[in-house]
């Protein structure tokens, strides 16, 4: 069975998600057990795939062939549907698997039955399947299909609270913008298919020579994926979406944004790697800076704790774009600082998932205890919810990049790498971190400090378990960053930086 781990990581949640409503008819506990089993199984699969890829190299899995390693059909053409998992894909899969393991137990308790818990769980599992599909696929059209799976599931989750006015509006905006970005992405795929008659990412990459059609497709991919990744000035949907989705599911939406960013890296480094263009790199860097500045400033004036965290999450997308963008600018010469910045950008994806994830869980716990997220009505919750207060403080400090936490470990790589390209980039990034510290100090003061605030009931132990897992993750990544950078971040960054030839060889041979 282990031979089929990459496809099982996608197929089990895809089918398992649709089984949730059926099992809910038997008994709620059967449904809950099934959800946990599916998520646990996915966790084991992505862990196994990552261990295999980090030790033995790229794992290509072909569907429809007698042998799953048979990449080329008779005639030497890669026509079958294919999963191509390199270190970067495996890294992305690990993030998704871990966050799912934390988010679903929380969601099982957090979402009330009368609010349509079964449908919410179904959408969450389908979103997980789509995320893993985007991370593992080696086929452009399948990437689009999984992009759409994530869009549909995400919109369902965003607009889940139909009885409020804001959630359906946020879902409508997201749905429209996702549709536009998805269609432009599909147009890009269609142009490449028309030119090369193939959809396999490695094959098309080997054929690309930089024609006008190739460049037109790249522009379409860029615009579509930047929108889905919530980069400014096309980030508008994200704060609404993160803010309105149930907190337990906002974690998955964050990973959904990250996997779109992963798609952008895959397109820029692997598909168009042979056409390394500093201009595109500068575009990514500029939009990264714009994203962090705009989101940090907007976070400063939020009065809803959920929206404040949502803007904080968007600002972190800017740091990832800055790190990897610097690598893209430097790709043709491949200086050391470019790789350091890329390590930082890639490492920050993992750190962002943990810190922003923890902040959203804390927001969920506050909403559970107080029934509101309005900072004007909150206060003094640190007395009744000391564990949540400490976790929120820890995640806030990590997000702002305060040493020795994990956010600092990745940001220092981004700062030092980008400094060599231009000190102005680093100065803006550091200023935004200071601004974010001010924003989250304000949120912490507003929600948790002051005279004792009344709290309804106790926080369920499963909330504390999920929060505790993320706290441990943040501390471990912050205190022993060398191990993680060496074992998983460096291989993932290398897969983008200089792994294109290996990626193509794994599929096309030679």
């Amino acid at each position, binding site marked *: 069975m282990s031979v089929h781990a990459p496809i099982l990581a996608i197929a089990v949640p895809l089918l398992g998600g649709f089984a949730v409503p059926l099992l809910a008819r038997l008994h709620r506990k059967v449904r809950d057990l099934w959800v946990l089993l599916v998520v646990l199984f996915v966790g084991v699969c992505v862990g196994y795939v990552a261990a295999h890829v980090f030790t033995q190299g790229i794992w290509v899995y072909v569907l429809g062939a007698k042998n799953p390693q048979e990449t080329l059909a008779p005639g030497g053409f890669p026509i079958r549907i294919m999963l191509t998992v390199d270190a970067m894909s495996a890294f992305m899969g690990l993030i998704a698997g871990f966050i799912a393991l934390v988010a679903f137990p929380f969601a099982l308790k957090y979402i009330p039955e009368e609010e349509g818990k079964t449908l919410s769980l179904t959408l969450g599992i389908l979103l997980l399947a789509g995320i893993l599909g985007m991370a593992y696929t080696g086929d452009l059209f399948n990437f689009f299909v999984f992009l759409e799976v994530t869009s549909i599931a995400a919109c369902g989750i965003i607009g889940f609270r139909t009885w409020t006015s804001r959630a359906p509006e946020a879902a409508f905006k997201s749905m*429209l*913008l996702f549709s*536009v*970005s998805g269609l*432009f992405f599909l147009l890009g795929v269609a142009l490449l298919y028309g030119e090369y008659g193939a959809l396999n990412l490695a094959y098309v990459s080997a054929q690309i020579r930089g024609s*006008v059609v190739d*460049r*037109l497709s*790249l*522009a*379409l991919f*860029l*615009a579509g994926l*930047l*929108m889905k990744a919530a980069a400014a*000035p*096309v980030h*508008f*949907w994200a*704060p609404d979406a993160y803010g309105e989705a149930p907190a337990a599911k906002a974690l998955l939406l964050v990973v959904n944004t990250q996997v779109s960013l992963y798609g952008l890296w895959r397109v820029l480094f692997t598909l168009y790697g042979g056409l390394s*263009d500093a*201009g*595109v790199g500068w*575009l990514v860097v500029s939009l990264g800076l714009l994203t962090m500045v705009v989101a940090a*400033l*907007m976070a*400063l*004036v939020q*009065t809803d704790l959920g929206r404040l965290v949502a803007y904080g999450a968007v600002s972190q997308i800017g740091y990832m774009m800055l790190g990897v963008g610097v690598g893209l600018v430097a790709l043709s010469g491949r200086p050391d*600082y470019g790789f*350091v910045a890329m390590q930082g950008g890639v490492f920050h994806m993992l750190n962002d998932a943990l810190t922003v994830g923890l902040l959203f869980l804390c927001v969920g716990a506050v909403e559970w205890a107080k029934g509101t997220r309005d*900072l*004007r009505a909150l*206060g*003094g919750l640190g007395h009744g919810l000391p564990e949540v207060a400490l976790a929120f403080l820890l995640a806030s400090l990590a997000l702002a990049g305060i*040493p*020795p936490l994990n956010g*600092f*470990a990745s940001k*220092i*790589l981004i700062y*030092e*790498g980008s400094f*060599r390209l231009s000190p102005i980039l680093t100065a803006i990034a550091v200023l935004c971190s200071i601004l974010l510290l*001010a924003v989250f*100090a*304000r*949120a912490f*003061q*507003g929600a948790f400090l*002051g*005279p004792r605030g009344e709290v309804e009931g106790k926080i369920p132990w499963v909330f504390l378990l999920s929060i505790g897992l993320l706290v441990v993750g943040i501390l471990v990544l*912050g*205190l*022993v*960053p*060398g*191990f993680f*950078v*060496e074992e998983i971040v460096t291989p993932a960054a290398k897969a983008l930086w200089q792994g294109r030839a290996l990626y193509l060889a794994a599929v096309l041979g030679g």
Partner: protein
Amino acid sequence: MEETIKIFTGHGYWTPLIWTLAALGVLILAILLWSRGRREYKRGTEQELPFLSGEKAENPRVGAPHLYWGFVEALRPFLSPLRDWHSGLINDYAAWFLVVLGVALLLLVV
């Protein structure tokens, strides 16, 4: 062991070990200073009430929007256009997508 902690940044390296030890030192110093403080404080008494111009306020909480009020006011010239930019109108959002697409096309095709 050292390799699991240290990360190399190109210019040098970052190790959280030294920073954590320094932070522990500062924490111990803070606890020592705190332990030498006055001991009349009693929980649950009037001492817990904040002193607001000598008045006993019913809800003496300083809400989050009041924090950094001056700072936010100073940034108002930048923040107001930003808030207007986030209009909530889907037409505006779709237009910005076209702007990004236009820039990408200019950069790559023209």
